[in-house]
């Protein structure tokens, strides 16, 4: 996994609540058996017109969002299905972090597994970001996210702190493989299995 320590980039403002994973990556694109190839289909139904041209009104297609690497969105981002194709698509598109007032549980975990940092700020702070981005116009709005310091900041003085579980923070900072960590517990797992198997056989 690609580590996440500190990142500066332009934001894309997606001022919508309850953005579900069916919107992030519609089901017709879930048929690939690889982890890649999902970026072009990100937000497909919103992003393209019926004839395949980019939808000019869609937030990510605006000049202000060109080259954006940080997505700022409304509450309950990533609700719905467990498809990890959603963070894969977001990552492949170029996003390194998502800032929102809240995330759906499974989506939040899936992001962390893929080095895509989910940042929870308060609704007031996120709305403040929307206003600042709007004011910046086509020039775009830059944000720095520092995972080590758990801080979001911008040159115009915006600053906010965020919380993240220490375990997730360490995994992201170091780009650790969770499977490798768990396999170190081999002795504990084997001991647990011995007891469980006995119980299920009815001999415990």
């Amino acid at each position, binding site marked *: 996994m690609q580590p996440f320590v500190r990142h500066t980039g332009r934001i894309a403002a997606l*001022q*919508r*609540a*309850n953005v*579900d994973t*069916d*919107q992030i990556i*519609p*089901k*017709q694109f*879930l*048929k*690939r*058996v*690889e*982890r890649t190839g999902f970026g072009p289909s990100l937000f497909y*139904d919103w992003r393209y017109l019926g004839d395949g041209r980019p939808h000019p009104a869609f937030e990510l297609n605006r000049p202000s969002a060109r080259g954006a690497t940080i997505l700022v969105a*409304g*509450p*309950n981002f990533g*609700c*719905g*299905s*467990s*498809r*990890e194709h959603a*963070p894969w698509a977001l990552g492949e598109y170029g996003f390194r972090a998502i800032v929102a007032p*809240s995330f*759906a*549980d*499974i989506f939040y*975990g*899936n992001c962390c*597994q*893929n080095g895509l940092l989910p940042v929870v700020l308060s609704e007031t702070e996120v709305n403040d970001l929307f206003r600042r981005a709007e004011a910046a116009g086509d020039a775009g709005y830059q944000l720095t996210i520092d995972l080590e310091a758990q801080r979001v900041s911008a040159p115009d003085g915006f600053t906010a702190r965020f919380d993240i*579980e*220490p*375990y997730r923070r360490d995994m992201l900072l170091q780009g650790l493989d*969770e*499977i490798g960590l*768990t*396999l170190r*517990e081999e002795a*504990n*797992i084997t001991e*647990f*299995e011995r007891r*469980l198997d006995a*119980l*299920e*056989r*009815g001999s415990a």
Partner: protein
Amino acid sequence: MTPRTLFEKVWDAHVVKPSGDGPALLYVDLHLVHEVTSPQAFDGLRLAGRRVRRPERTTATVDHNVSTGDRALPIADATSATQVATLSRNAREFGVELFDLDSPGQGIVHVIGPELGLSRPGMIIVCGDSHTSTHGAFGALAFGIGTSEVEHVLATQCIVQSRPRTMEVRFEGLPGAGVGAKDLVLALIARIGTAGATGHVIEYTGAAIRALSMEGRMTVCNMSIEAGARAGMVAPDETTFAYLEGRDRAPAGDAWTAAVCRWRSLDTDPGARYDREIVIDAADLSPQVTWGTSPGMTTDITGRVPDPAAAATAAERESLTRALEYMGLRAGTQLEGLAVDRVFIGSCTNGRIEDLREAAEVARGRRVASTVRAMVVPGSKRVKAVAEREGLDRIFADAGFEWRNPGCSMCLGMNEDILGPGERCASTSNRNFEGRQGRGGRTHLMSPAMAVAAAVEGRLVDVRQLLKSVAILS
């Protein structure tokens, strides 16, 4: 000992390694696998030279993009066919049991786990699918995971989880005729919102839950995820044991007796505390129907489409306006009477035998309106076989419903069962997101009885009116 909830008992029994403040390493009793969220996980194992740690605790099936039409034909879509073939290859290579298209056990993953007797009380069950919450109906802790976690469970039979908070949802009283499990859970989501239970595991309690069949409890637990919950659970009781006894993979003989004895101790202890509590009077509920593009956008069938102008915040107004535009609805419109083009009965929410019995009861002796295309998609081959034994297929066919082969079908439209742009559908599935059933398709979620009533009348109606006329006639 301090009194504990059902959730706490199941959680505590699965901790492989206690972790202080951090997430726990939990043992997974049962891992269910389907074709869409698993290929990249098996690939990861192969790349790392790892094996499936406990193949016998892993069960796979194909459901999401299989055709519900003629099974003698090959899968028409090449990428779908590749995904199905990839799962077969992976199952063979890693020694995992697969219920493939030819197997009599094939079906939607959340339908076959219970009917095989694989999903049992006290277990931790995971699957790369958010509706894994279904299996919580047995008093298991069952939740959806992402593909990276699927790979983790395949390799280690464990999952790393932070401890969620607990929420009791108590349905007091008994619902009236025409109001069932789907209405209970839709009413809950309408009340607390689609993020109302985020970070929580719900335990459903109360007289209305006790009175439900296992199928009804599964419907309720299934949609816990639509309220944002990590999982939903119901403490096991005689209904649970009666459902499980004698099933293919359920324990038998002395092991069964010992298991039931263990399962009886899972019930939440008197005096145990939940982090949050919600009480809903089931006797007060009417049939529920969604009008918007999120399961929280739900109201009574007797209700009206809300007015965005009355929304509390600008953001809410924006989202209501967007939803109404997508759904082609105007504020203040009465839901009853709204014409529908399609009706879908099926999915892991309402594709079980009880659901089909409920639907057939309303369909019996009636005709689907000439303006409507209606289909019934059983949740599994077993459900289909039982329904055919009971003659339900005849009732549906005589009424003008298509009787199809099992799969997810129009719940998410990964196969050819999709809505056209602007088509309005009365659906027994679980999600009414934009484009979920086909780009531009408009979904209204409701119970099987309500969906059949809509098919027959060609518009959304209150099924209680139909039931009333039955009572008068008979």
